């Protein structure tokens, strides 16, 4: 079936089987491999992307369900000249990543979290990150990164 999506500002016309997951479309059709697959039960959040302004788990959504949508993946965050989005910078400054596998999903979830909870406390940040698993960092520096990113985004 034919589906149109705008990904990181660029329109794509895709013709794919109806059972194709959004994460598969992103990784395999569009070759944007920054969005990762970490599980098969929609728990880990490594596949998180922004669809029409909201963070969603792309492993849990069919491409067909997002026909016409505006999608942002991790590749779409930095500026055209390569300078980092404030949340990406915050993760770097705070050592909020180690192996990097959960990072794209974590950064996009963090941006979405800050939009919905502009002055989130540490407790709220931790609760809101329940849908993003990290095995490396122990979450502490991720929380600090989100706090720093929130300040930068609010500025």
């Amino acid at each position, binding site marked *: 079936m034919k589906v149109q999506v705008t990904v990181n500002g660029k329109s794509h016309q895709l013709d794919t089987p109806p059972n194709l997951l959004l994460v598969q479309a992103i990784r395999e059709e569009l070759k944007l*491999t920054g969005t990762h697959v970490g599980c098969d039960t929609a728990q880990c959040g490594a596949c998180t992307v922004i669809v029409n302004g909201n963070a969603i788990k792309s492993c849990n959504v069919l491409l067909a369900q997002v026909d016409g949508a505006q999608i942002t993946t991790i590749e779409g965050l930095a500026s055209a000249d*390569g300078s*980092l989005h404030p949340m990406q910078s915050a993760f770097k*400054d705070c050592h909020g990543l180690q*192996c990097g596998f959960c*990072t794209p999903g974590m950064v996009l979830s963090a941006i979405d979290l800050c939009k919905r909870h502009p002055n989130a406390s540490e407790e709220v940040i931790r609760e809101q990150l329940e849908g993003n*698993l990290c095995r490396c960092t*122990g979450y502490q*520096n991720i929380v600090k990164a989100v706090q720093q990113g929130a300040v930068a985004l609010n500025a």
Partner: protein
Amino acid sequence: MGASDFSKLPHIGESILRKEDYRFLTGAGQYTDDIDLANMAHAVFVRSPHAHAHIKGIDKNAALAADGVIGILDGKDVEDAKINGLPCGWLITDTSGHPMKEPPHPILAQGKVRYVGDHVVMVVAETLEQAQNAAELVTVDYDVLTAVVDVRDAPNGSPIHESAPDNHCYKWAIGDKAQVDTAFANAAHVTKLDLVNNRLVPNAMEPRAAIGSYSRANDEYTLWVANQNPHVERLLMTAFVMGLPEHKVRVIAPDVGGGFGSKIYLYAEDVCLTWASKKLNRNIKWTCDRSEAFLSDAHGRDHVSHAEMAMDKDGKFLALRVHTHANLGAYLSTFATAVPTILYATLLAGQYTTPQVYVEVDAWFTNTAPVDAYRGAGRPEATYLLERLVSRAAWEIGLTQDEIRKRNFITQFPYQTPVALQYDIGDYHACMNEAQKLADVAGFQNRKAISESHGKLRGIGYSSYIEACGIAPSNIAGALGARAGLFECGEVRVHPTGSVTVFTGSHSHGQGHETTFAQVVAARLGIAVESVDVVHGDTGRVPFGMGTYGSRSISVGGAAIMKALDKIEAKAKKIAAHLMETADTDIEFNNGEFSVKGTDKKISFGQVALTAYVPHNYPLDKLEPGLNETAFYDPTNFTFPAGTYIAEVEIDPATGLVKVDRFSAVDDFGTIINPMIVEGQVHGGLVQGIGQALLENCVYDRETGQLLSGSFMDYTMPRADDFPIFNLGHVCTPCTHNPLGTKGCGEAGAIGSPPAIMNAVLDALAPLGVKDLDMPATPHRVWQAIQAARAQ
């Protein structure tokens, strides 16, 4: 240069932001599944649904006729190709004097399957979906046998391997049993404890993946694989399994999303892909699903132990005796046999002067996934047992948890333990004192009263851990059964324009070596950190390496780089001496400049580098051009990070929910290169260790051997809202035997934390009459323990 001078160099001890972050933050990391090769096919493995069964027949006909299928391989094809089974890298000698049982570990099942998830058939097709569809058409006719899951059931279970009819792999012991028994006979008090160290699934966020690629044109293989030690992977696969010429195989471990030990091993899938890429003449990719990972990644821990400590009337330890049943799983994984023996029992003196220790370990086969090293590898098991026992002893004889430890701390170094290891240096009192300050132990009683006023329980738990890392001196390892050396290799290549590329045998799958190792090189050569590039993970670019595990990278990999830098410095001094027309011995090197002693004549490192490659004014009769040195470093001892962790928990008796209210960790890692990276390693380790204590548990059905905790829905992973901010502190007693003074830091958090948590939980529950509890202390188990105690 001594460790003390090294630690004073610029950049050492500096929290430089990581060089590798940009690609990870922008989605430009290249993990194995991200790689696409031309004309790539896809593999799916058909796995056993039974824990234990004979294979009566495999029918591939329907599958072979399915769309897009290129090839379907099974155990018979493996046999015809004369491919050996997976090797075990550590030979343990049984107490009878015989070698351990070493049953075959075929890459595809031959005649029998031995755990749910055991690899039976590999299906290769044009697309992943076609491979998955074809896999469902493969019919395997099984004759189901009874399964054994729990180590305690192993001796009476159906024999899993012909060579081990009682499912016993080996009995191993260390220590003087007679001396220990005498000490017990004369003890004023004996504390006893039965404990379980619960089985865990490593669950790195990146599932395993591999791509096999064979070039008929060059008769060369390339294997991309999510792996922690590509040279070891290559050596094992070419020399022991497939009989391939080692120089014709390239193994590349690109960006790897976490390992924690689970990606050390040579797995069947890696071999199958390499083999099939030539047999089918195609590039073939395999990516593990998460549910598949739960079944097929090597698991960790799974010990059942009985421990006894004998002490005098003042709580001074006289002797420790331990018996452990260790579950090895259905087959021997690469390092499996060393984990419950060499990496475990030798740590049971702990930080204490216990003069006699006797440990006996029985290792068993069961119908479960193979068990091997997982963050800490044997040391978490040792620390959990010892630190639970010590706190219990304190409660029994009326001492506080800290007092009993302080009465037994080692204070003189080097210290020869009764379990083979000799600790070089440490300051255990300093770690304890610092931890008690950080934890505000003084305020505990007050906080407890407040908790109680809200109907909650509060407890405090101590753990004083020590571990052996920086494995290992090759001759000692060999004497203990290792079939490999455990040195490391580093090549420092100075380019004509003065920038440097370092090729290291260490591998970063999150540890930040691209930054830390660059700091080391920049510090020694007096150049910018930006001018140093670190290459790892490719047998085609790095001369050799034993890889990253056992917290060995900075102490062994870093030391190899330091030795290469020594050679670079020595050669550069000769070039500088020639340029400045003086004797070699007149040259000093500081801060990137070569100077003539007693004068103000100097030239820069950059000038020397250029001269090495444009050798016009150069002692060509005595010195080769170029500035490129390789070194191999074999450590002379293990390193011994140690520390004290103090956990404070609050428990709601109505629900059993344990909240970690505060956690203080003081570690002595010796010299610290990048504090930010080291703290990150501790955070990660703490969360895995606390996860083991409160959340995680890998459970098989005891009757059928079915994996019950088979996904993230059933296996509780640590999440952000399970933890407070950790209080970290450091003590520094530099390692005495490597040039950096480092001890390593990657595993400490996972080693020291489980007993701290469980001691805190038991401290909190004590007033309700709860005497004992196994990990994980989930709300259900805590609640049940409270009910059971109240019923008495």
